[in-house]
């Protein structure tokens, strides 16, 4: 049956807002990226690819930010996926007590990143914090340090906080994925005398690939967006050791008023995300099986 043309009227309010406040800024990022605009003065000049050249050859902080971002991403993806998967398997059954545990583990997800940032800043505090006190209590006092003030530890302290913040959400996705695996496959594996590890390798993991794809892709996007957490906990410091691409765009755009250069970094950022997302989907799709 033909749908009347009036259906297009349904798009009008949303599409106008979307075009003005998303599509237009996204496209103008490309335009600003080839100018030297400072964001304030009415006049600015076209500078070609100068901003891009500067990003890749003359800006060690940007390179550091990319490196930090990858460190953060890798830690969060690996750690968060393992934690979420292990607890999803433990809490797979829909018993009352398991539903309670899942609700508890999910809880941090509903908090604001600023709140989470404060809580963990306190835990990491060198003098007042729980972490150093805990290390002292179990006799690991020599590991004590100012976690967010230490250049080599800070990015991992942030990544750990990110895992605490979002692992519960990924756990729930895995539980849903586990529920979709037909029970008879486990029965067959059981009859065949497969070990637990073999069952996991041959049944659970391959059939969980769709959920794993979602978890890993979502975790990646969240890690790139970790702006709020980093901004509230360290502002990118000490000495740029926790500067990630998102905080660096803010720094360049709103602290040093180089809108043109910040736009060029934004465009590069967009390209990096597109590439990583594409590679992940390709890699994980090829690993899928059908039984």
């Amino acid at each position, binding site marked *: 049956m033909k749908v009347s043309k009036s259906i297009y009227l349904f798009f009008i309010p949303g599409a106008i*807002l979307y075009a003005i406040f998303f*599509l237009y800024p996204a496209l103008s990022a490309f335009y*600003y990226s080839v100018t030297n605009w400072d964001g304030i003065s009415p006049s600015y000049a076209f500078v070609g690819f100068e901003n891009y050249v500067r990003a890749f050859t003359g800006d060690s902080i940007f390179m550091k930010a990319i490196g930090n971002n990858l460190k953060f991403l890798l830690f969060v993806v690996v750690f968060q996926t393992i934690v979420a998967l292990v607890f999803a398997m433990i809490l797979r059954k829909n018993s009352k007590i398991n539903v309670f545990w899942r609700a508890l583990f999910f809880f941090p997800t509903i908090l604001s990143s600023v709140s989470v940032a404060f809580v963990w800043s306190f835990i990491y505090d060198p003098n007042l914090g729980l972490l150093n006190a805990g290390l002292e209590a179990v006799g690991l006092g020599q590991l004590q340090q100012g976690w967010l003030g230490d250049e080599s530890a800070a990015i991992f302290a942030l990544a750990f906080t990110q895992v605490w913040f979002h692992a519960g959400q990924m756990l729930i996705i895995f539980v849903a994925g586990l529920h979709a695996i037909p029970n008879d496959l486990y029965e067959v594996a059981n009859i065949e005398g497969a070990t637990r590890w073999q069952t996991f390798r041959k049944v659970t993991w391959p059939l969980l690939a769709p959920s794993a794809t979602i978890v890993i892709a979502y975790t990646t996007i969240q890690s790139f967006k970790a702006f709020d957490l980093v901004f509230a906990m360290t502002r990118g410091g000490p000495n740029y050791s926790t500067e990630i691409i998102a905080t660096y765009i803010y720094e360049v755009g709103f602290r040093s008023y180089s809108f043109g250069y910040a736009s060029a970094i934004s465009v590069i950022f967009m390209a990096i995300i597109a590439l990583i997302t594409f590679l992940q989907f390709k890699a994980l799709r090829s690993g899928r099986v059908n039984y």
Partner: protein
Amino acid sequence: MVKKGALLLYGFLIIIPMLMVILTSMKTLQQTFDNPLGIPASGLQFSNYIDIFIEQTMVGYFANSVIVTLCSVFFALLFASMIAFGISRIHGWVGGVLFAVFSLGMIVPAQVIMVPLYSLVLQLELTDSLFGLIIVNVAVTMPIAIFILTGFMKTLPKELFEASMIDGAGNWKIFTKMVVPMSLPSMSATAIFLFVINWNDLLYPLLFITDNAYKTLPLALLDFQGQYATNYPMLFTGVIISSLPMVLVYIFLQRYFVAGMMAGAVKG
């Protein structure tokens, strides 16, 4: 045995920070320095909760957050459900292209467009206004809502719509009288998802708001950090006040939160 131990360990990892926040909010700064983790011999008190309302315009921040969140969720849901209905009704490649265009907004992180978006909002003179925050929130959260709702609306039985069209119902009537009521489960899950995003959002207030009169809770909290430096009792009092509505709603509607966040996450 190992499983139980792992569960308890993870459980403590979540519960202990929460207890610590509550406890610290009921101490004075001096008590925190003397005894950062325990209960002070001199006793706990509620004066931070009173002080924060006196020294800060807490009621104002709270009201701003409520207004911005409710309006943003309402309009994003309204516009997104209209678009999702449109996409689910348009067959062939046109619907596909429209869907792809709106999906873009879901993949591109907000930080990528923050610089040009800021200058646009500045030119439109929408800085320091709740209205400005609301329309930006609506525009940027619509894509995820469109994604979830389109998926749901595509599963609705087409025969029903066709029958009502033969009876002379227009698209608007089909939308309001049939699609919206039938989509309520999916819409409420989406609403909760958007509610969490908007209530907790820091980036747009940080970019667009400098006047205290228009600040929302997350931005106000960030300001406290500058103002109170390492005054954790005061900071945590702010954390509790700003999280309380969300926590209370979560306790009662926990199932729907999980459903909403799931719908938001599962977009692969």
